[in-house]
């Protein structure tokens, strides 16, 4: 049972306060939270659940806004966190983004939304479709209409039928001029390459994202060519469980608009599309560094937005890095960011240079971790393939669009080839 929700700006100012129960939560709790937050070295990494002297706090941080919820009683922690995430999502959806100004300009709508999303500390409706019917989102069309017709209320006049319908996620009867449905496979590859150059972990977390613009009450089935590779799946509430259990077919009545139909995990992949080979050689207080990047397994599509990022150890006094492709920037906190973009055909991109170590230090004794980013359009690296999508109970054949995208998630390389003699030989 949540007792109060606060929205804080990125300077700690209370932008919004919504008391939920008879226990009034004093604003000073935000002060406590902010002090706590400022006292952390790495403030973006404070836990999502914290105990203050008076309350237990859930906090979710999005786009400069802290969503803070307080409770004094035991409750399922994920309920608090999930709810705050949902609030953030719904607000983003409604306001067409999320930032301090948007919240401040539309605070009345935010209040209205919170009013419908939670009552007396218990979450009620968080389905964007239903909310949309109760409270019309502020958009340009509405504003223009308001000016023209003189009716500027953002409330709909009817109550959503869906609150009582058996398909609560779907607007009762949406109408679209063009019937279209888009299915995207979006995958993130997490990989760890250890100090010996071995691929110790390679996993894909993927989502099936759907944008449905279909009229009426369509019934869809989506099937895949190779479901056996999936390790674990999670579904949107609209997916019927039985067909999946029996035939691995997704059968569902979609919500209107964008939603996440399914998420899945594929583990133990054997290779990565690219390689990154860092090499570090220390000698007499200097360290030669070179990093080589190239394609290992050609995915058949262009690898885009390639980048390599690593933190220079604190014992590095200065660095002098050059690259044959892309740009190198040393950001704050000694983070070195090498933006490569696309891999050129004629040469392998590399970065090289010299690091000057602290006086008294002969060789580098902390090895940086290289974090890699990339994006590959048109391919799902897990190998998951959509077989077909059938749309039932629609008079006309809708337009169906399919896309795939893979990007790097937590892709890190701890490997650093070293040409020094191994230390254990000494002992």
């Amino acid at each position, binding site marked *: 049972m949540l007792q109060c929700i606060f929205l804080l700006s990125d*300077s700690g100012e209370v932008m919004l306060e919504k008391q939920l*129960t008879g226990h009034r939560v*004093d604003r000073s709790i935000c002060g406590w939270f902010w002090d706590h937050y*400022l006292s952390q070295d790495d403030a973006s990494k404070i836990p999502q659940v914290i105990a203050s002297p008076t309350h237990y706090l859930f906090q979710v941080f999005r786009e400069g806004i802290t969503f803070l919820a307080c409770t004094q009683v035991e409750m399922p*922690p994920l309920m608090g966190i*999930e709810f705050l995430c949902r609030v953030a999502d719904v607000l983003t959806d409604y306001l067409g983004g999320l930032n301090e100004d948007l919240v401040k300009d539309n605070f*009345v709508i935010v209040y209205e939304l919170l009013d419908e999303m939670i009552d007396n500390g218990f979450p009620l409706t968080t389905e964007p479709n239903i909310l949309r019917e109760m409270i019309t989102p502020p958009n340009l069309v509405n504003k223009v209409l308001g000016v023209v017709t003189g009716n500027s209320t953002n409330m709909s006049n009817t109550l959503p039928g869906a609150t009582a319908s058996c398909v609560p996620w779907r607007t009762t009867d949406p109408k679209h001029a063009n019937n279209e449905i888009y299915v995207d496979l979006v995958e993130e590859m997490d990989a760890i390459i250890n100090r010996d150059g071995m691929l110790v972990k390679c996993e894909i977390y993927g989502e099936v994202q759907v944008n449905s613009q279909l009229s009426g009450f369509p019934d869809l089935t989506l099937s895949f060519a190779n479901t056996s590779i999936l390790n674990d799946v999670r579904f949107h509430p609209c997916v019927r469980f039985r067909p999946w259990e029996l035939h691995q077919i997704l059968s569902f009545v979609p919500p209107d608009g964008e939603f996440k139909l399914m998420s899945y995990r594929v583990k133990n992949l054997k290779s990565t599309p690219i390689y990154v080979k860092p090499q570090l050689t220390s000698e007499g207080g200097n360290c030669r560094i070179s990093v080589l990047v190239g394609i290992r397994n050609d995915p058949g599509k262009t690898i885009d937005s390639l980048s390599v990022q690593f933190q220079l150890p604190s014992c590095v006094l200065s660095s002098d890095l050059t690259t044959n492709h892309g740009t190198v920037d040393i950001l704050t906190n000694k983070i070195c960011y090498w933006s490569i973009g696309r891999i050129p055909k004629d040469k392998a991109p590399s970065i090289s240079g010299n690091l000057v170590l602290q006086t008294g230090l002969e060789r580098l004794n*902390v090895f940086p971790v290289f974090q890699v980013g990339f994006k590959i359009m048109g391919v799902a690296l897990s190998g998951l393939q959509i077989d077909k999508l059938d749309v039932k109970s629609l008079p006309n054949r809708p337009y169906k669009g399919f896309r795939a995208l893979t990007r790097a998630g937590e892709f890190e390389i701890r490997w650093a080839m070293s040409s020094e003699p191994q230390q254990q030989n000494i002992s």
Partner: protein
Amino acid sequence: MPRPSHPSRFPSSPSPSPSQPSGKGEVSDLKLQLRQLAGSRAPGTDDSKRDLFKKVISYMTVGIDVSSLFSEMVMCSATADIVLKKMCYLYVGNYAKVNPDLALLTINFLQKDCKDDDPMIRGLALRSLCSLRVANLVEYLVGPLGLGLKDANGYVRMVAVIGVLKLYHISASTCVDADFPTMLKHLMLNDPDSQVVANCLTALQEIWSAEATNSEEASKEREALLSKPVIYYLLNRLKEFNEWAQCTMLDMVAKYVPSDSNEIFDIMNLLEDRLQHANGAVVLGTVKVFLQLTLSMTDVHQQVYERIKAPLLTLTSSGSPEQSYAVLSHLHLLVMRAPILFASDYKHFYCQYNEPSYVKKLKLEMLTAVANASNTYEIVTELCEYAANVDIPIARESIRAVGKIALQQYDVNAIVDRLLQFLEMEKDYVTAEALVLVKDLLRKYPQWSHDCIAVVGNISSKNVQEPKAKAALIWMLGEYAQDMTDAPYVLESLVENWDEEHSSEVRLHLLTAVMKCFFRRAPEMQKTLGAALAAGLSDFHQDVHDRALFYYRLLKYDVATAERVVNPPKQAVSVFADTQSNEVKDRIFDEFNSLSVVYQKPSYMFIDKEHRGVFEFSEELGNLSIGVESADNIVAAQIVGATDNDLLLSTEEKEESTVSSSNGSAYSAPLYGGSSLASSLSQSELAVSSSITPANPSPTGLSLDDLLGLVSSPAPAPSSSPPSLKLNPKAAMDPATFQQKWRQLPISLSQEFFVNPQGLVALMTPQILLRHMQGQSIHCAASGGQAPNFKFFFFAQKAEEPSMYLVECVINSSSSKAQVKIKADDKSTAEAFLAMFQSALSTFGMP
């Protein structure tokens, strides 16, 4: 995205800070404008009203007090515009509590709106009406609520059900008298709208749990909620419910006790697909049901672990990063309970560079736990990579983890090599941690001494600064003096720098090491030993001095005996003690899917009534800073607090609290009638102080007199109540036993009294109080807190009897009050002990 770290002008109090507009002028301006608009029916009025309302609400949000506009806002509220209405409801809901008289003005239009044609307006009005939370307006709620529950529209019924719960918290009797709980029960079992059913469930759970303490019937009703027909009815409708209602439901199902295993399997089959729900809270709720249902079926329980593993692992790696920590905490709990089942999933616990350290810490613990013969090599390889990590605390943790795995004796050979590599990394913290580990390892596996000592011998003691590491190095120098050629000389130089060694631990170790070395290599060590003993004897630290003296006398007595005492043949240590007791772990497990898992503490340790002393205080302080709260509100809030807590207590504890509270009420009558005290104390304080056990009725009068005397005079004469009780001055109890006992025993007495000002001054250093109380044979088990709130747990034992007294004492130095709760094995002497405790506390700080 990094957050800016510059200090902010954060409004920590509700009063506007100087940098904000004071709002005074603006507010009176708004007042004027609102007044002009109030009666106007000109076209466009609503638009200008809307702008004004928006301004008012935005002031309110910033923290400017706009309560003075109350009557104007109400006057303007006659409108058909629903957004205006909503803003008005919001405003009224915020300020009604502070303006109970003016709130009456709003009743009229809210009641009218409750009968509007539009169900949305009916619902909103009803919600706002119930959210006013003004005690003297409850009579106006009953009618609209009754209508709302019977409304044709589900939205209105849903609002009305929660409205009943709100009414219950404002005035329980009104709610029960209007027979609302019965109506809710009917709705719960019959309403077609799933949200109405879900809300009924939440409301009824709360109402009946709170009522159960007073009425037999309510406690039966509460049990009926967990009966087979109700649970089955709800389970069959589960999929109609929205995700949040499903969470509530699952929480309830977890408490249900099925009659046989068929039922268990039926429920699990029905719920299995919930494990694939997109909402993590639903998944976790289902996991809890599965675990709870199968607790007594060992085989199935294990299969459940296998089944829930994949969804939990997916939740940690997918979804939002915010969720993964909470899920990981739960996973951590399961891994610790059944590490074998997760042995093949160790790669999931590998730390990623970007993860926050609290996540890495959990993962390290899990990696340590799941290590077994088949995966140790990979895990240790992985852990070794973290040792070179940029994040120093994590690097340290991971070295410790390697050590722990080594002590579990899998593949020790490989691990020792790794540890020795750590020693060669030439990073001070790595060396320090590794030294401590090598020491522990040698205590368990003396057979490795040869390899280790060769490497340890190369480490210069000058490069080791941390006391723990230095002590470990010195221990090894002493223990393996015969294998390290230069041990005597290293020790010698350490003894020479005796004065520069700040840590007494290191000096103690040094004395022992010098002794051990002496027995093996006497000629080289004689001089050093003399120097060390001399330095030790003149050491200002008590223990160091005593040990030096002890060694000196031993040596003087007989060198051979001394060797037998100080350096006997060692036995390898087989098991090192575990840190968290199994009982505590089980307790946390029972609370799966709750905050306690995230904190790794059972909730009684951080949220229980008894453990909430500091908590309640600060809440009061919070209230003070808001402004004046009417007395009934405080009482109401306390009642709510109590019911909330009851939801959390396990059944035995609930029975306990039933007993103590009914005792309280039995004794409140004579207190009211018999003494003038009642009038001087507020009702709430009375409730606290009157929970006296009826075990021995005769001394009650006496204690009342005490109470009177103590409350009226802030600094009572210490001799006012001569203690008749004798206490054991050497009573002993370890914290774990204390905790257990504290949980088992009911409160015998609780009281609040003033602390004398001298005592408060002396409280600046709480240790003095502990010493003072110890002088009176009352010992401290634990203490904590910061000014103005201090919390102490004391215990004492009756002389020549095993009977114990446990005390929780919360001292608030700003209100100079002490709140004492006593639990006693022998309740009849609790009074006498309380008197003793009081007199002990009252002499505190006196010269």
